[in-house]
């Protein structure tokens, strides 16, 4: 069992949006196609590739742009007073990083590439101005913002290791599916340590959890690749956390 295709975005051009674009749906709904956006001089810069381990921004850097992930995975984290890393989230193609910086003028966390990452950066003042003209885009920005906050709920509460792991996998599966990638086969680009840190579990608990899921026929694991063999059962395990 190995992954057929790594999720890599189809590149857009002057006329078409990238297939993983975080904003295309919202813009199209409002009747703004890519040509129209171009006329509005919304500056969009494709940047990257950033190689594994490269930082996209660091805590305290001045905030001037938000960025959508076109390809790869980005991890955000902060470091506590004792120097311990706390993973805040993982961002997949089509997802937007830097949203939590909107309320201040500096990035409140670090962002690092977990594999080769391509970004689509756009100036925040520009898109904010555009949003005032496009109510749909504004709504979309708010939606993205609340999703970002919503992720934190995944970790609160008194849930078992298996429930957390199931919710984590279901969340990834839904997010990949939403961008047109396989719902059941994907590669976890984050390390076991990162997953453990994010789910507030011990590293050994993560591998024991994956082994239990594999032994019961719910998933199949090969190194960092995973296949969901029984997504329904996984959803059921995750339901207490994800609720819908």
């Amino acid at each position: 069992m190995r992954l057929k295709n790594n999720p890599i975005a189809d590149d857009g051009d002057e006329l078409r949006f990238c297939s993983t674009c975080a904003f295309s749906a919202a813009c199209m709904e409002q009747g703004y196609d890519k040509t129209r956006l171009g006329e509005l001089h919304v500056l969009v810069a494709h940047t990257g590739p950033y190689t594994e381990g490269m930082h996209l921004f660091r805590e305290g850097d001045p905030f001037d742009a938000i960025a959508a992930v076109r390809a790869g995975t980005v991890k955000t984290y902060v470091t506590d007073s004792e120097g311990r890393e706390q993973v805040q989230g993982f961002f997949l193609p089509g997802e937007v990083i830097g949203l939590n910086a909107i309320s201040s003028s500096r990035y409140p966390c670090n962002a690092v590439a977990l594999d080769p990452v391509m970004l689509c950066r756009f100036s925040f003042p520009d898109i904010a101005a555009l949003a005032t003209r496009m109510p749909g885009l504004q709504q979309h920005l708010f939606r993205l913002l609340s999703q970002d906050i919503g992720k934190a709920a995944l970790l609160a509460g008194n849930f078992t290791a298996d429930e957390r792991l199931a919710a984590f996998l279901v969340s990834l599966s839904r997010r990949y599916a939403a961008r047109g990638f396989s719902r059941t086969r994907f590669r976890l680009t984050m390390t076991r340590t990162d997953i453990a840190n994010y789910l507030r579990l011990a590293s050994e608990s993560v591998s024991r959890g994956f082994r239990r899921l594999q032994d019961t026929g719910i998933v199949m694991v090969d190194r960092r690749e995973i296949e969901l063999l029984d997504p329904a059962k996984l959803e059921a395990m995750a339901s207490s956390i994800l609720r819908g």
Partner: protein
Amino acid sequence: MSSNITFDAELLRRYDQPGPRYTSYPTAPAFASEFGAAQLREQARRTNQELIPRALSIYVHVPFCFSPCFYCGCNRIITRDTTRSAPYLSRLAREIELIAPWFDRDREVVQVHLGGGTPNFLRPEQIFDLMESLRANFHLSGNAKRDFSIELDPRFLREGDIASYAALGFSRASLGVQDFDPVVQRAVNREQSVEQTLAAISACRDSGFRSVNVDLIYGLPKQTLEGFGRSLDTVTQARPDRIAIYGYAHMPQIFKAQTQIDEADLPDPAGKLALLQLAIDRLTRAGYRHIGMDHFALADDDLSRAQDSGTLHRNFMGYTTHADCDLIGLGVSAISHIGDSFSQNPRELPAWEIAVDRGQPPVWRGLALSFDDRVRADVIQQLMCNASVDIAAIENRYDIDFWDYFATGLARLEQLADDGLVELGQQRVAATSRGRLLLRIIAMCFDNYLNAATARPRYSRVI
């Protein structure tokens, strides 16, 4: 395996060529010194980060032998001075301390193999110390299915040795025999009686060893069908769980001890093939299953079961049931297979000693596998373990079109198919019964490192 396989002289001439034994792909000559300790450490770090990190398998090389067997191509040091083992063991303990911290402690060691050389050059209490050193630095499995094995030279076993190994947790032994024919034994400088050997097998059984393996060699000087046939009968009557029949590789330009062997005494290719054929016939008739290449096992042995369940694997120790382990090689010349890499310790004792004494992990050379290496390694692994390749499985796993990808090997495979060695079907590439004797030749069609060189004296002849 059909019992009557014939090769005509022309075929023999064509296929009796040098080729790798594929205990790894890429093979050791492709390893390079650019891959050192830092690269190996990074590979180890990555394996710790897998979702379910693999269990560990540890190979410890004990290079010392009391006397030189002339056929031997292993890395070994001939000495009767048993005091040489103490400094070697203290350096091994140091190497263990250097390497073990690279691996998360929640990774169980499910396999330990002591190979050589002659591991029973060490006294049981020295092996006890070695195991304690492993236990202090790794998480040795307490599971009954763990596989702790040791290679033994029956000529140098002392009373009670085998019971001591069993007490240390060893449950599988591999005994060197080669051939009982006294004429052959003198020609290769290894005189070993049937009684000694049978006593060792009994001692293993009495001490509760789960599995006993016997090594034989065909193609030795002065070997005859009659004499080798008698050896085969003696061995099969003792019912070891596994029997390995290795082809003798005469490469005196590389292995100095082999210069003691008179080339005129060696059987010709047809004679060698007849010896192999005899072995296959006798062993299959005695109820042994031909696992592949040079290995045979009784139907209820772990190897046979692993082959049935598709979990058989081939590595530097031959065929093994532990497919999903990262392999850590310790000691002079030992080879590791960690994550997507191979690496090897220095072949010469002084170089290994210097590195360990400096507190450096003694990695001499290695290789990080590319995507292409991994695809080909998988195909060759399937060939060696199942004598066939599942085309759709490979296409699906690597997202390739099989025959597009292996277009360069197709012409050679078609030649093999014309010669009745392989069948090229829609679903699989499968060795025929005569092709199973030449798996190396079939595997070579998928080897991307052979194309450059035509003459390769580094590899032994395939028959």
